[in-house]
């Protein structure tokens, strides 16, 4: 897969890069300070924010929903933001993670760790296969191929009624207590479940932060910026992209598994391509290619959905308009725009 020598080489290069935000800055505005705080090195502040987060949103289930979708968008952003591949097939990973987790809890073994791990692993395997089939094509073709293959997965899920419940969805996923070195804890109060999800979100954030700061992360961004040049530097660009796609798929699968536990149910629409579309919208809304942007996007999207759906049944039209305006006027998303603004101020 990835050339070991090239990674070692990148390690030498990588350590010097990405340090531009740590330089001391005078006369910082609030936005600048905020941007520096959350710019990757300060994971601590992100965690601190997540700990108080359920207490500042209207109700705790919404907070849980936001961090689950935020995790999904975070995983998706590895593909779109860092590798520059517009995938329209991530519903397949989210869905297969959700279904695998649910099916294992119902039929095989009522162990949360094992079922979530299986959901994660199944998404990894699926991403490996779909990646193999579509990674060779770039740009628009890649998007359409991932969309088509994900739709294939959807139809398989739809038809395989014995396993997935088909159109009715996978029902009555048991509320298994969390077992931990012989202890078992009930995690199904809203607040407890939030913190249970937060463990996985936190681990993923930590891992992704390490990954994106690592030589691999730098090579990945080099491939996004200029594939040909990265190739002539000796990197196996399609393997790099493939690996990013697999990681991205795995995290999406984990988010899917958590979502299945959260709802005790998996709907067939979790595999449908509009789910992929939703995560694309969240990522773009928050700011693709920024570390924390997807979370903000998921938060804003779900918060708006929550508020608007209480006012009108046609809430989607407002989200659609916001999204279209965002594409037209704020292509770097909410967080990207804030960051750009801070950067501009810093310069002049």
């Amino acid at each position, binding site marked *: 897969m990835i050339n070991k020598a090239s990674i070692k080489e990148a390690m030498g290069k990588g350590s010097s890069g990405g340090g531009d935000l740590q330089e001391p800055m005078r006369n910082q505005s609030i936005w600048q300070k905020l941007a520096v705080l959350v710019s990757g090195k300060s994971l601590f502040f992100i965690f601190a924010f997540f700990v108080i987060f359920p207490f500042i949103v209207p109700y705790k289930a919404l907070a849980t929903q936001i961090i689950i979708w935020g995790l999904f968008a975070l995983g998706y952003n590895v593909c779109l933001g860092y590798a520059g591949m517009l995938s329209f097939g991530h519903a397949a990973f989210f869905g297969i993670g959700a279904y695998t987790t649910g099916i294992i809890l119902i039929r095989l073994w009522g162990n949360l760790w094992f079922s979530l791990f299986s959901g994660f692993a199944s998404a990894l395997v699926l991403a490996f296969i779909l990646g193999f*089939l579509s990674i060779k*094509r770039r740009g*628009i073709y890649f998007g*359409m191929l991932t969309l*088509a293959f994900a739709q294939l997965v959807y139809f398989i899920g739809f*038809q395989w009624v014995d396993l997935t419940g088909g159109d009715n969805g996978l029902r009555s996923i048991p509320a298994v207590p969390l077992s931990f070195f012989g202890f078992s804890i009930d995690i199904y109060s809203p607040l407890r479940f939030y913190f249970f999800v937060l463990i996985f979100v936190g681990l993923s954030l930590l891992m992704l932060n390490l990954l994106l700061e690592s030589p691999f992360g730098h090579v990945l961004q080099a491939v996004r910026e200029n594939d040909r040049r990265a190739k002539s530097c000796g990197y196996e660009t399609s393997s790099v992209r493939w690996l990013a796609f697999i990681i991205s798929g795995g995290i999406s699968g984990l988010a899917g598994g958590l979502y299945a536990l959260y709802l005790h149910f998996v709907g067939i629409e979790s595999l*449908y391509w509009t789910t992929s579309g939703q995560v694309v919208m969240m990522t773009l809304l928050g700011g693709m290619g920024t570390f924390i942007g997807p979370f903000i996007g998921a938060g804003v999207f779900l918060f708006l959905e929550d508020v608007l759906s209480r006012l009108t049944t046609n809430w989607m039209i407002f989200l*659609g308009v916001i*999204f279209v305006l965002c594409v*037209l006027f704020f292509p770097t998303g909410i967080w990207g725009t804030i960051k750009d603004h801070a950067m501009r101020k810093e310069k002049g």
Partner: protein
Amino acid sequence: MEWTAVIMQLFTGLSLGMLYVLLALGLSIIFGLLTVVNFAHGAMYMWGAYAGVAMISVTGNFWLGLMAAPLLIGCYGLIVEKALIRPLQGRDINYPLLLTFGLQFIMIEIVRMFWGTSDQPFPPPEALSAPLGLFGAFYFPSYRLFVICITSVVCLLLWVFLEKTNLGLIIRAGTRDPLMVRALGIDMTRIWWIVFGIGSGLAGMAGILASPIRSVFPEMGLAMLVECFVVVVVGGMGSLKGAILSGIIMGEASCLTALIYPQMSDIVIFLVMAVVLLIRPSGLFGKAGLLE
């Protein structure tokens, strides 16, 4: 298996395939010239159907609806191009795609606001509701026959337009080398505008033609859009010949599978796509390396 059933199913497949062709042609010329992947194409198809519903409820005449739908949706396409797509010129190729993706949800919601979420009844016109007997053995639904005829005529007209007229010449040149065409003093922006209108009009027409065969509901374009992407990818992006051939292949594949193993009929086109792409990565008639 009855061989008459096979022939009937081939015929049904052809009528479905021709609808794919109509939609894929629109997607393909828009893509070939503007390099815009129009995610709102499915929603335009749906709007075509609803334009038909509205027209028929007002005038009670299918034929008026059939004429109005492509015109209305074509004009709508002109507006969309001018107001939304044009400002994105010069930006990354993904932005128009994302914009039209958002647009389709707005379009779906607008229809939901006026007609609700339920299916709309859409019977075929009186004159085409009786089946047409042939050799005393086959009874073809005459509406499907009509769909095949009229889409063939539209394809022929489009071919004549692209091959024999000056504008068609400019369009063909524009897909090859837009910079050179511009250098010759031709306003490509206007050409893009017109082509987007034509593509949208074709989608609107496919919408109203499909209404008596498939059911009319706000999300009808979502699944159709993906099927059309498959058709365009298999045919080769930007290739009209490819779009026609692969549209017919996909229609037949889907309908013949329905005869043998109905559960697979939705899945088979994706399998065909996977096989074609493994053998010919740029589709049947696609050029390698186009827009990658």
